[in-house]
């Protein structure tokens, strides 16, 4: 890993991003509050992007022609690339250098739990879409799942509601 020696032994903060506005808000909030003031940050930061595989996105494995799958894959790769670049740009704009952005494939819930275990993170940061109870139950919630199942502490950052 290519960090300077100042990163050794620091607790690790993982920030989960997808292409939603609220996850980027969470990233920005974290950068503003914990990664300001020059280069000596108290935490090491890794940004995790969970990308679903094309077949899971389709719901039925092997549906459609090979061409369709290929173009879908290509499309998803492009959008993943965009998200990764956007995350890097946000960090750079806040003058936080050398941020690792990792892409892991799979269901975001599992990806986050695995990433926490793999990196032995001290804190996982997730945004929250602020769904109400019903929507949350029906659509599921990654932040909920993480709050319950992830082994490390979890920080849930909500976008302030517009007045």
């Amino acid at each position: 890993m290519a960090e300077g020696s100042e990163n050794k032994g620091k607790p690790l903060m993982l920030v989960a991003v997808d292409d939603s506005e609220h996850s980027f808000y969470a990233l920005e909030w974290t950068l503003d509050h914990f990664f300001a003031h020059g280069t000596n940050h108290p935490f090491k930061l890794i940004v995790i992007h969970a990308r679903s595989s094309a077949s899971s996105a389709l719901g039925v494995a092997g549906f459609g022609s090979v061409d369709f799958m290929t173009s879908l894959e290509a499309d998803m790769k492009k959008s993943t690339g965009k998200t990764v670049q956007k995350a890097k740009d946000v960090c750079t704009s806040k003058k936080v250098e050398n941020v690792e952005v990792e892409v892991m494939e799979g269901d975001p819930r599992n990806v986050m739990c695995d990433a926490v275990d793999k990196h032995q993170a001290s804190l996982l940061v997730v945004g929250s879409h602020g769904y109400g109870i019903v929507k949350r139950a029906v659509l599921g919630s990654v932040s909920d799942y993480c709050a319950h199942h992830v082994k490390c502490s979890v920080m849930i950052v909500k976008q302030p509601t517009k007045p």
Partner: protein
Amino acid sequence: MRVMVAIDGSDESLYALKWALDLLLVGPKDNADDVATSTGTATLEAPHAGSHENVSMVTLIHVMQPFQNYVLPAAGSAELRKEQEEKAAAILARALEICKDKMIKAETLILRGDPKDRICEATEQRHVDLLVVGSRGLGMVKRAFLGSVSSYCAHHAKCPVVIVKPPKESGKQ
């Protein structure tokens, strides 16, 4: 950054406090040599609160739950209230000791009512930047991964919330 930590007297909440102090509160420790405290519901405006990102002040909030509606003679209920207040003060005294050891300024806030509501209200009224809760407190249900107050606050508090998980039993940290 204004940080509020919910304390209910459980070991979990005290662990959450220690965790928050160790990990979240960094920065110049030279101005945090005094521990400023205020008990009761009086608000204390800390001199440097919110003026710079390195947190030096923490608010410890403890909510006393109202009694069940037992039929109590007037004298009895006053005594119970007093006992509850003493217990609250003792719980927060322990929490303040922890803050003092880590050289972090702390103020205390004791409220009465439903903990979930009071805590969320307090975070708004005091413009708290970050709320810290343990994952399970006194109302421990063995199979629940997340206690009801923590869960409620995670969903309903408008500010960011940190849910602190207990240390792993296997000792791998």
